[in-house]
């Protein structure tokens, strides 16, 4: 098994995809919708971008085939994705890395109340 650290840092989109898949297996449309909603539209990638990212994650062994989800209209099978154990490790490692960064920022007094309120405004207000 590879060292999860070697794959860090992840791109924001990759991390969001992994986080979405950590909750449950999902198909492309569902993943895109979840990412968009969770980031309040800040990350709203094109279909192609998402599939490229998924392909890359699959190549690295972070996600895998979730089997086929329910047939869509017209009877075409829609593919679903799930996170692999290694994917979980990587996502966790990335989360730890971010926590460390946040700690560091806090130490440097970059995350005072004033800063946090603008952040809140930006994520929820607009």
């Amino acid at each position, binding site marked *: 098994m590879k060292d999860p650290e070697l794959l860090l840092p992840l791109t924001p989109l990759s991390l969001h995809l992994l986080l979405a898949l950590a909750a449950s297996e999902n198909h492309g449309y569902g993943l895109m919708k979840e990412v968009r909603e969770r980031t309040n539209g800040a990350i709203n990638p094109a*279909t*192609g971008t998402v599939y490229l990212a998924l*392909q890359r994650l699959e190549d690295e062994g972070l996600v895998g085939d979730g089997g086929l989800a329910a047939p869509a209209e017209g009877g075409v099978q829609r593919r679903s994705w799930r996170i692999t154990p290694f994917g979980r490790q990587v996502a966790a490692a990335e989360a730890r890395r971010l926590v460390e960064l946040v700690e560091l920022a806090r130490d440097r007094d970059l995350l005072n109340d004033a800063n946090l309120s603008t952040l809140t405004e930006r994520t929820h207000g607009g």
Partner: protein
Amino acid sequence: MADGVRRSQRVLRILLLAYPKRIRQEHGDDMWLTFERHLRDARRAGRGAVFNLWRREIIGLWRGGRRARVTARKRQHAHRRSVGHVRSENTVGAGASWLDFKLGLRMLIKYPGLTVVGGLGIAVAVAIGAALFATSAAIYATLPLDEGDRVVAIENWDRDWNNQERRILHDFVSWRDELESVDDLGAYQDLERNLIVEGTSGKPVTVAAITASAFHLARVPAFMGRTLVEEDERRGGPPVIVIGYELWQNRFTGDPEIVGRNIRLGREVHTVVGVMPAGFGFPISHSLWVPFQLDPLDYERRDGPGIRVFGRLAAGATIEQAGAELAALGLRAATDFPDTHARLAPRIMSYPMQMYDDMEGWEFPLLYLLVVLLLVVVCVNVAVLVYARTATRRREITVRSALGASRRRIVTQLFIEALVLSSVAAGVGLAIAALAFRQAGSVMSMLSNNFIPFWIDFGVSAGTVVYVAALAVFGAVVVGVVPALQFTGRRVQSGLQHAVAGGSAMRFGGMWTAMIVLQVAFAVAVLPAAVSVGRMTVAYGFADPGFAADQFLTARLLMDYEVPRSAETDAYWNAFYSRHRELQAELVRRLDDEPGVTDVIVTLGPPGMEPIVRIEVENAADAQLRVGVGRVDIDFFDAFDVPVLSGRRFHPADVGATTVIINESLAQWVGDGNVLGRRIRFVNRGLTTNPDEVKAPWYEIVGIVSDFSSQMEPDRTVAKVYQAMAPGDVYPSTLTMRIESGAPLTFSPRLAEITTTIDPALRLDDVLTLEQVMREEQGGWRIGGWALALLTVSVLLLSAAGLYALMSFTVTQRRREIGIRVALGAEPHSLLASIFSRALRQLTLGVVVGIGVASLLDWGTAGEFTGGEGAVLLAGVAAFMLAVGLLAAVGPARRGLRIHPTEALQDGG
């Protein structure tokens, strides 16, 4: 599915083409389903949302697709680099990859100096090679006819005069009757005639009086009507003619009723019986064919008109067999007719070779060898540059070896890099050659009155391209493989590894010294001659005529003739010349009456192109001089406004008298003081040893004129003798007239009209302004001048760059030694002196060797090699090479002095 959805799906599929195939295959359907869901959501939200969705998708797809491709490529490259060899799907062969080609291209940009200098050198060498190849391809061409390689020419070679005897009517008949290994044996005679189409003035054309067998041999049927047939050759039969397609189109506007129409050739009227298809020009570049009606009974042996004989090798016969059969017939003729045939030897050759029958067999291989040698010299120079560059990359090479790249792999890579350089250069060379060839084609076509053999093509053929490609590969081997092999040799490799580890540097003292010496010697030996010849060529190519040549119209005046029967020769020619004299006088009189035409004069040839003869001066030891002899009208000097410096002009009494006028240059040679009244005579050039025959009568100098139109051609001489002649004394003569309107060519239709009216047998050739005549002569010199200048500049640049690279490389090699000596307390100036004295020794040795070779060549050619300015040019080139060499040593020497001792000990080079 609704139309809108289907359209969207199609658009998305097209957009997906931006993605790697794998993504498309694995996720294409799924991506569509996902997109379709989004589309449905967006439709519910309104038009703006649909627009935003498409915008996002298009941008995303484009960016994503590009990124995906870049990533995939990077991954491949990284893989290749790490392994040191290439996956089979991307290899080009012999372990080379496209990456090597790209690297080669990058090297071209990274080292612009090497690219320009080396590329120029290779380009020039390739251009010369391509031009030579195309020339020889034209010479050794096969006729574009069915089994054209089996068409042959037969001629009788005169071993005494070393030229072709063309009065061979009797031999032709005997060959035709007896040769078994040659079929369709035929002959033709060129006739110059005025082609007169109703309503236009005459235009001189070359007509082939040809045997009907020619059409059988060519295996080309008529386009319209018929070809010539054997019955046409019967004497007294109806005069028929076959015309060419192009002539039919141009002169008869493609008249569909042309067959049966009458056309006039000089004084004779012929009936058109057929039109040949486009492009047919047999035997050379003809477009008019009349029957061959010569009868050997009219002529004695070795008398009569000149003809050319052709045939086709019989089925199964080889040219050697035909040659043997012909030789036997030749021997028999020599025995039977010793008076005429003792020194004649018939010979057979492939048809196009007859154009070059005076060329020795070894000349072309020698030229090829010279081109290859030139290419080798150029490439060795480029190789030196590449070698010096490779030296700076030795760490890279060593590291690659350490990573497991084989020697073959590294050599291949360096070869490919060189191949990229040589290919680009070869492309440029080919373009130069194509340009030069087109120029040469137009010059030749002008000089030969558009009479270029139908099988010669002045374009770049596929064969030339293949040859150039081969030269490029050969160049790349010399430039890339030789240095690479040396660099990756075991001995050097171990040295390299030491070098990287901080051990001893490479040393190739002897080889480098030899290279430097050779480099300098070559430049010093060859360049003065090139500079001298180039300067002369350019001077002639752009010389000014020295008078208002653009105001004069000139033309050669000719008259149709038949070759008379042997018995009637003298009477015929007497009548011919007297008729010519009358007609010419009439023409001059009519032209004098024309408004706007003044100074109509008749000469032997255009001024500045007088034939060359040797003269000697009475009572002046044995000195002889080559001079141009102009036989001119007595009004010649007035017509061209040539001032008489002393003595007098020609009087009518001078015609046929033993008086001459000379120009200033000749007067200076004849002697100081009064030259008038002294006598000169012409000296035959050694055709006979009888002293009485050698010398002509003495001519008295009665006037001196200033130099006039005398430096147009190097073969001509500045010194001139003029003799007065009466109009009609020479045939053919040159008519020159001043046209006052200032646009002489506008008068040429009127001139042709007047001439044809006087007699349709009178022909005007080369109707041009005098300026055009002179510029035409200069055309070849100009091409030569450019070619030589390009060659000289590229050799000089290459030599200088090669020397620079060599010098700086060798001094760089000594950096470590210099550093250590500095550390040991050596004085900088004594160190510099040691570096420069060594450089100077090598350079001086090269200069001395070069001067030696140049002097030897100069001595061997009696000063011709450097045009008599050897000393100045030699000194100049020697100084230049010395300066370049020393300059090249300065930089590395200074860097060497600045080096820190510890650094010197660590650094290998």
